[in-house]
């Protein structure tokens, strides 16, 4: 701790100069979020015009609508599957790359880098063409697309999480003759439990309202929340996007905490607790 203290840079003048700048950036970044909350309660049929009395009528209309409910269900289902797939591939990719001499890590790093740089609009188009040519369900394409969007994040989160802790622990386990699958379950998974929870939560949160894949891949049904929101552009703008946003802002901390708790509990169930002696 004292080592970190002595390494901290002390530039009070620059800090004081940068704080107002950050305040402006933060205000501009959070302004639409705050406005969405206001708009959902005070919104009228005219964009930009707020009523003087708050009401829940847009929430009631949203919850009463069969189409909105079905779209929400589709979005949540896709996001859950994509998040599970992302977590699974993240674990397998990071674990197997640690069983190798470094070549696999380089290959995965290269793939993750190219995926993060490659325009996802083009990948969505490629998925749509593949689905129509190979004849498989567009739903599968959307899930693969959402997984591809998350894959680089997943990879880099797991890399950051397992860099420090995993190597000596895995090495010890293999030296003691523990099998590859047992090491994965009892050593590696508990070590990266936090990263796994973070990945699953981030994957879910970035997938549920992804617009690129549904807009490009789906022609008609199933209508996801993002596709339905996107289609609102061609009609009168009622505060439904604000209602969706506000519900999400309420559910966001809950989702995060629940995933964190759930994954940690699951991981601890099969873990061999290691005590770090310093």
């Amino acid at each position, binding site marked *: 701790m004292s*080592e970190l203290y002595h*390494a*901290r*840079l002390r*530039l009070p003048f*620059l*800090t004081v100069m*940068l*704080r107002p700048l*950050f305040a402006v*950036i*933060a205000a501009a*970044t*959070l*302004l*639409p*979020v705050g*406005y*969405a909350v206001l*708009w959902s309660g005070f919104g009228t049929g005219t*964009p*930009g*015009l707020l009523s003087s009395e708050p009401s829940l009528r847009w929430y009631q209309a949203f919850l009463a609508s069969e189409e909105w409910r079905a779209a929400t269900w589709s979005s949540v289902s896709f996001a859950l599957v994509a998040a599970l797939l992302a977590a699974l*591939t993240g674990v397998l*990719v990071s674990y*197997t790359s640690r*069983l190798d*001499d*470094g070549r696999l*890590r*380089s290959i995965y790093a*290269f793939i993750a*880098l*190219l*995926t993060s*740089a*490659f*325009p*996802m*609009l*083009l990948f969505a*188009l*490629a998925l749509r*063409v593949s689905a129509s040519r190979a004849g498989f369900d567009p739903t599968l*394409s959307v899930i*693969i697309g959402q997984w*591809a969007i998350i894959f680089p994040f997943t990879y880099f989160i797991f890399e950051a999480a397992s860099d420090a802790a995993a*190597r000596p622990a895995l*090495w010890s386990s*293999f030296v003691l003759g523990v099998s590859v699958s047992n090491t994965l379950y009892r050593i590696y998974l508990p070590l990266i439990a936090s990263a796994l929870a973070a990945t699953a939560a981030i994957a879910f949160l970035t997938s549920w309202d992804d*617009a*690129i894949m549904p807009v490009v891949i789906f022609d008609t049904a199933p209508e996801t929340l993002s596709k339905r929101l*996107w289609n609102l*552009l061609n009609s009168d*703008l009622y*505060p439904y*996007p*604000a209602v969706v*946003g506000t519900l*999400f802002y309420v559910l966001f901390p809950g989702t995060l905490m629940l995933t964190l708790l759930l994954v940690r509990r699951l991981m601890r169930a099969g873990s061999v607790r290691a005590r770090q002696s310093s």
Partner: protein
Amino acid sequence: MILTLWRLAPLVMVLLFLIGPIFVWAEFIAALPSAAWDFTGATIVDVTLTSFFYSASVALAVLAIAIVTAVLWLLEGGVGRAVIVAVMGFAMVSGLLVRNYSWIALFSSKLATEHLPLLYTPGAVVLVMTLVLAPLAFFIVREALKNIPVQAIQAAKTLGVSDFRILVFLCLRSSRRWITLSGLLTFCSSMAYFITPRMIGGQQDYFIGNLIVISVERSGNLLTASALALVLLLSLMPILALIVLVAPKQRRQRVSL
């Protein structure tokens, strides 16, 4: 044998999911008829150049925000750091479409239309895209600053180097690859953007991504969309090559079995 399968199974899966569709698409593009290249409306060169200009503006603005925020993160203590990370983290996952609709409503308000009529202008598109893409760039730059060895800073301090010089010549200088990488990634994302340009920019086609989506959405014309996408991909090739060159290399670690 089993170990080899263990090692390679995820790689095969990743390649199948990521490269498979690209191969099928490449085969589709190779057989494109000449009619697919008959673009109507704005000339494709004009739109590509416009996209390039606006994307470069967005990338520069995003870099400025990311550097300012990451440097402040480096200088702040525990609470300040937590606030910065919370704001940027929340902004990153807080629903792109919802935020864009909120901006439409904000720009449509009486106050904005009277004093700052930005809606359906390129300025509004650049502003909103910058605010949308800045958090990701911030996290990349922050990661670089976080990984600067404590010993290097301590050594510089012991040698009597001022804190400002440490910030500029040690911290920012050693993070320059990551800073460049975040700028290039932002540029690539911006070039193919279609959501904010369509929503905030209105019907005007500032970005090539909009033309691609219009081809797919309105007429289901995958041929023209693919031809446009190929133009976009070719224009991005030098940037993609630069990203591969600039990217910090992986350190090799070995676990013996």
